[in-house]
């Protein structure tokens, strides 16, 4: 067993730890901005469960008041999601004016005003043929790239499903040619979903291979790390690997996400029993990039067992910050190996 002081005595590890720990102040919550979307995708999380039926609050004053209360409560990072935030830019602007650190999850078909200087995650689910089939939207990638050409806020989030794994190659190549960035997500089944988009051991292994190849071939375009690949393509889901710390799976209200995280619906109400980054996901199948960003990051202690494992954790956190915080520059990955996640009892 290494001492923590020995691990961070390695100069490149110490430098990376000091770089990422400056962001330990971030405390997130998420907000459904509207109950509408301009497309309808198969397997969309928003249109699962009862949150889709929440009455839409479009009142700017109400949102401003909510943000001020959130800020007072200690929230420093907002994630504006469901169903499609770009349909209510005035509400996004209101959030930005009060809490200027955050991210918007969008399908990229509408341009968000430049004044809203959040990171923007643009969802992509395969090539345009697949998007047409699953999302019922034509020329999706071309339209997204035109809308966010040269926009430093934008990063594409490619969701791997069993039917689009190899298409990640042409999408990444196209984004690289246009000087854009991409990160990876995994389709995670909503509760009760047993359709053809649910991953199997075979599709997880194939996804791992493609992710590894793309990370090696496009290191300036792909914002990911070998440890991200392991964590998100493991046969065990994130909860089984790392014990999810979102309120939905964590009864403690003493510290961390269990204490501060809330997931507001578009009527500005929230339910602790349903609160996580992507509600209505089947926790046993959860490999969401958003979930990992909090769940893996929170498990620093168990990763501080040796320099390699801690380096892998630092790569994960460095990736998380580069994906979620506008202006944060990712460093080169410190751990190039695909290492097995440590168990809680390993340290």
């Amino acid at each position, binding site marked *: 067993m290494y001492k*923590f002081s020995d691990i961070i005595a390695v100069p490149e590890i110490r430098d990376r730890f000091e770089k990422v*720990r400056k962001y*330990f102040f971030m405390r997130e919550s998420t907000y459904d901005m509207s109950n509408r979307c301009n497309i309808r995708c198969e397997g969309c999380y928003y249109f699962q469960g009862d949150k889709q039926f929440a009455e839409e609050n479009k009142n700017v004053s109400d949102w401003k008041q909510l943000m001020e209360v959130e800020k007072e409560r200690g929230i420093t990072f907002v994630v504006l999601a469901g169903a499609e935030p770009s349909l209510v830019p005035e509400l996004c602007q209101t959030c930005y004016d009060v809490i200027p650190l955050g991210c918007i999850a969008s399908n990229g078909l509408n341009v968000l005003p430049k004044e809203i200087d959040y990171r923007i995650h643009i969802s992509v689910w395969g090539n345009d043929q697949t998007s047409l089939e699953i999302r019922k939207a034509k020329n999706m990638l071309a339209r997204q790239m035109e809308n966010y050409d040269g926009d430093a806020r934008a990063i594409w989030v490619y969701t791997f499903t069993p039917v689009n794994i190899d298409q990640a190659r042409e999408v990444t190549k196209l984004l690289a040619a246009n000087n854009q960035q991409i990160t990876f997500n995994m389709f995670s089944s909503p509760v009760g979903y047993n359709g053809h988009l649910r991953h199997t051991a075979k599709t997880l292994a194939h996804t791992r291979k493609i992710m590894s190849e793309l990370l090696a071939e496009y290191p300036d375009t792909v914002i990911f790390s070998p440890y991200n690949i392991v964590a998100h393509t493991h046969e065990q889901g994130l909860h089984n690997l790392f014990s999810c710390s979102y309120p939905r799976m964590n009864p*403690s209200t003493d510290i*961390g*996400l269990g204490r501060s995280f809330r997931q507001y619906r578009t009527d500005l109400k929230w339910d602790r029993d349903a609160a996580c980054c992507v509600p209505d996901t089947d926790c046993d199948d959860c490999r969401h990039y958003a979930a990992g960003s909090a769940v893996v990051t929170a498990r620093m*202690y*168990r990763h501080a067992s040796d320099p390699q494992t801690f380096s892998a954790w630092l790569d994960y956190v460095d990736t998380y910050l580069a994906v979620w915080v506008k202006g944060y520059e990712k460093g080169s990955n410190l751990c190039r190996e695909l290492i097995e996640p440590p168990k809680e009892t390993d*340290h």
Partner: protein
Amino acid sequence: MATDIQQTTTRIAEIIINELKLEDVTPETFDADLDLVDEIGIDSMDLATIALVLRDEYGIRIDEDDYPKLTTVRIIAEYISTKLAEGK
């Protein structure tokens, strides 16, 4: 025993002051019953860092499930004493 606990309490306070870069307080003046979450504003990542420093210092393992219980310097000191007595 009481002296040991007092020494541990002072050392933990020193570690917290160093890690959180707290000003206007010394290990000797740090209120051992101050709630670290509610009154100092410590978060889970800060606590994990402090736990690692304590692991180095005392050679004990701190369970992830125990984090939420470690809300004051006095409680942490008692936790460490118990762990040391158990030989972990």
